[in-house]
C-alpha cells in the first residue's frame, strides 16, 4: 500500500467517523486485476477497500449530480451532508466546471485531490500482456509502477517494462493539469507534465479532404448502437431530460397534455446514419466550452468509436476562437453564455 493510498483511507475514515461526510467516492479493486471500479464508502470500517494506483481511470465527478437526481424513497429523508470525492488533475477540471455551472456548490463536497502521473488504459494493458502470452485468466496479482518513461508491471511476481504510450490512456500524454485545480486536501507530491496540448491526431483528420473526413465519421458513427454510455458517463452531462431522449422525463402536474403532445422529437430511437450523426453532433454542440477532455466517453464506448477526436477538436476550436478553456476557473462564466466584442464571426456583430 502506498503512502498516498493510506493517507486517503485515513482521512476518509476520519470524515466518516465524525459524520462530516455522508459517503466517500473513490476506487476499489475491480472485476479482474486490470480494473479498478468506483466505490462508495459509507462506513468508516470499510475504508480499507479504497485503492489508489495507475488503474484508477474513471472520472468520479459525475456521480455528484447523480446523487441530486435520485428520487427519495417513501419515508427517506434527504441527507444534506457533503460527499467526499477523490479527483485526479483532469477530474478536478470537471468538478470546477460543475461548480462554475452551479450544478454543485462548494459546501456540498469535500475534495480529496491526487496529483496524477498518468493512468493506464486497461484495453491497452490487456493487449500488451496478451502479446507476452499472459492471459488475464491466469493473472493472480498485478502491480504497476511508474519509472520515468516506462511503467513496470509486475505480474504474478514477474516484472515487465512497457513504454508509457503503449499502455497509458491517450489523454495522459499531453495532460497539462495533472495537479488538482481545486481540493480540500492534496495527497502526494505535485507532478510535472506537458505544458502544451498535442493536437496531432486532430490535425491529421482536419487535413483529410472533406469527402474522406465525412466517410471517416460516417463509418465511425455507423458503429454506434446509441447505448448512451458516452453521455451517461460524461461528468458534465447532468440534465434530467436530454434533447436526445425520445420521452418526456421531466413532468409535473402542471405539464399540459399539449406540451406533452407537442414535444419535439429531435431524435428518433432509430439507429441509422442520419439519426446517429445527429446524436453525436448534438452532443458535441452541448459540450462546447464545457468538455474538459477527461476521455471518459471514448473509454466508455463499447464500440470503440474514437470520441476523443471530437472532444479534442472541440477543445482546440474553443481555445483558438475564444481563447477559452473549460474547467479552469470556478468563477468563469460558461462560454456559450458570454459575448465579447472581439468574438470571431462577423455575422453576429
Amino acid at each position: 500500500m502506498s503512502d498516498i493510498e493510506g493517507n486517503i483511507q485515513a482521512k476518509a475514515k476520519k470524515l466518516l467517523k465524525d459524520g462530516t461526510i455522508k459517503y466517500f467516492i473513490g476506487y476499489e479493486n475491480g472485476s479482474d486485476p486490470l480494473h479498478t471500479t468506483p466505490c462508495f464508502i459509507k462506513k468508516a470500517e470499510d475504508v480499507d477497500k479504497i485503492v489508489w494506483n495507475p488503474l484508477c481511470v474513471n472520472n468520479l465527478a459525475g456521480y455528484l449530480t447523480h446523487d441530486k437526481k435520485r428520487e427519495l424513497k417513501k419515508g427517506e429523508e434527504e441527507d444534506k451532508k457533503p460527499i467526499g470525492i477523490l479527483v485526479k488533475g483532469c477530474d478536478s477540471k470537471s468538478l470546477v466546471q460543475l461548480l462554475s455551472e452551479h450544478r454543485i456548490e462548494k459546501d456540498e463536497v469535500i475534495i480529496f485531490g491526487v496529483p496524477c502521473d498518468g493512468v493506464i488504459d486497461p484495453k491497452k494493458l490487456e493487449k500488451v500482456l496478451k502479446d507476452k502470452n499472459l492471459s488475464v485468466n491466469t493473472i493472480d496479482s498485478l502491480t504497476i509502477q511508474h519509472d520515468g518513461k516506462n511503467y513496470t508491471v509486475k505480474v504474478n511476481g514477474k516484472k515487465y517494462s512497457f513504454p508509457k504510450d503503449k499502455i497509458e490512456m491517450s489523454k495522459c500524454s499531453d495532460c497539462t493539469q495533472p495537479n488538482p485545480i481545486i481540493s480540500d486536501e492534496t495527497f502526494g507530491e505535485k507532478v510535472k507534465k506537458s505544458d502544451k496540448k498535442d493536437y496531432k491526431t486532430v490535425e491529421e483528420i482536419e487535413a483529410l479532404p472533406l469527402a474522406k473526413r465525412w466517410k471517416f465519421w460516417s463509418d465511425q458513427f455507423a458503429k454506434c448502437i446509441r447505448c448512451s454510455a458516452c453521455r451517461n458517463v460524461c461528468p458534465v452531462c447532468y440534465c434530467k431530460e436530454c434533447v436526445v431522449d425520445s420521452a418526456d422525463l421531466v413532468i409535473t402536474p402542471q405539464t399540459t397534455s399539449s406540451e406533452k403532445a407537442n414535444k419535439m422529437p429531435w431524435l428518433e430511437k432509430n439507429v441509422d446514419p442520419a439519426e446517429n450523426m445527429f446524436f453525436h453532433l448534438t452532443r458535441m454542440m452541448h459540450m462546447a466550452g464545457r468538455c474538459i477532455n477527461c476521455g471518459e466517453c471514448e473509454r466508455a464506448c463499447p464500440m470503440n468509436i474514437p470520441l476523443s477526436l471530437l472532444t479534442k477538436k472541440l477543445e482546440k476550436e474553443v481555445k483558438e476562437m475564444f481563447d477559452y478553456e473549460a474547467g479552469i476557473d470556478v468563477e468563469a462564466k460558461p462560454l456559450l453564455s458570454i459575448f465579447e466584442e472581439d468574438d470571431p464571426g462577423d455575422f453576429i456583430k
Partner: protein
Amino acid sequence: MENNPYKPEIAVIEKIREETTGPRAIKTFTVSFQDEKVKKSFTYKSGQTAMLSVFGKGECMICITSTPTKKGFLEFSVMLQGKVTSALHALKVGDTIGVRGPYGNDFPLDKWKGKNLLFIGGGIGQAPLRSVYLNALDNRKDYGDITLIYGARTLSDLAYKEEMFELEKRDDVNVFLCLDWKFGKDGIIDEEAEEGWVTINRKEPAKTKPRKGTSRFTGFVPEVVTAVKPSPENAIAVSCGPPIMIKYAVANLKTLGFKDDQIYTTLEMRMKCGIGKCGRCNIGSIYVCKDGPVFSMSQLEKIPKEY
C-alpha cells in the same frame, strides 16, 4: 404476414361523445371495424383492453368500455394525456383509427354469478367498470344486488352523465354519485357541492344520514363507501380510479369486512406491445398487458410493489 398481432385493423369513428371538458377532458368514441369479417370475428370480455393507433402519432392502450353484450361496435373513453390521446381527441366522426386486441384478462363475471356486485369508480377509472356493470345489467338475473358508487371532482367532471342519471331511475341497481368537496383557501368548505347533494359527515362518514329519495353526496368516494355500508356478505367489490382513491376505498372496504379476494382493481403500466414481449409493463414476473390489467387484492399482495 399471417396473424400479425402488431397489425391493427381499421375502424371508423361513428360517434363521439364529450364526457367532460378541461385540461383532462374525456371523450367516448364509438367505432366499428371497416372490414365486415373483422366486425363479426372480434370478440372481447369486460375488462379487456385494445391498442388504438392514430397513424403517425403512435399507439396507446385503452380499455374497452362498451359491453360485449352489445355487438357490432366498440366504445373507448379516452382522457387527454399526451401525444396519442391528443391526436384521438382531434379526430372527427368518419375518421379512421387502428385497433388491435383485445388484450389482457377480464373481470371473472362468470365466477361472480349469484353474487352482489359493488362498483367503486373515480374519474377515468369508471371506463373499465362500465363494461362490467353494463354487462351484468344485461344479464341482470345472474347477479344479486348491483351497486355503483361513482365520484368526480364536479358535476361537469362526471362522465357518462346521461347514462348515470338513467341508471339512477332504475330500481334494479343502486347508484350513488358523489362530487368532491368544495375547496376554499382554508381547505375543505363543508357544504353541498351542488344543490340537493347530501354532505357526508366528515368526522364519522358512517353516521351520514342519507336524505330520503336521494343518493347523491358531497364528499370523497372512500367516505361514501363507508356511508353506504355495503355488506361483504356474498359480495364482490371492484374499484378503479386514481391510486389515492383506490387506497382509501380499499381500506374502508376492509373495515367493513371485505376480504382481499373479494376486492378487485385494475393496474396501469406504460405499454407498447400489449402482448407480453416488449418487456416494460412487468411487475415481477407478470406482464400487466397480458396477465392483467385485472387483479384481486390477494393477487396484488403476492407481487412486488413496483407500480
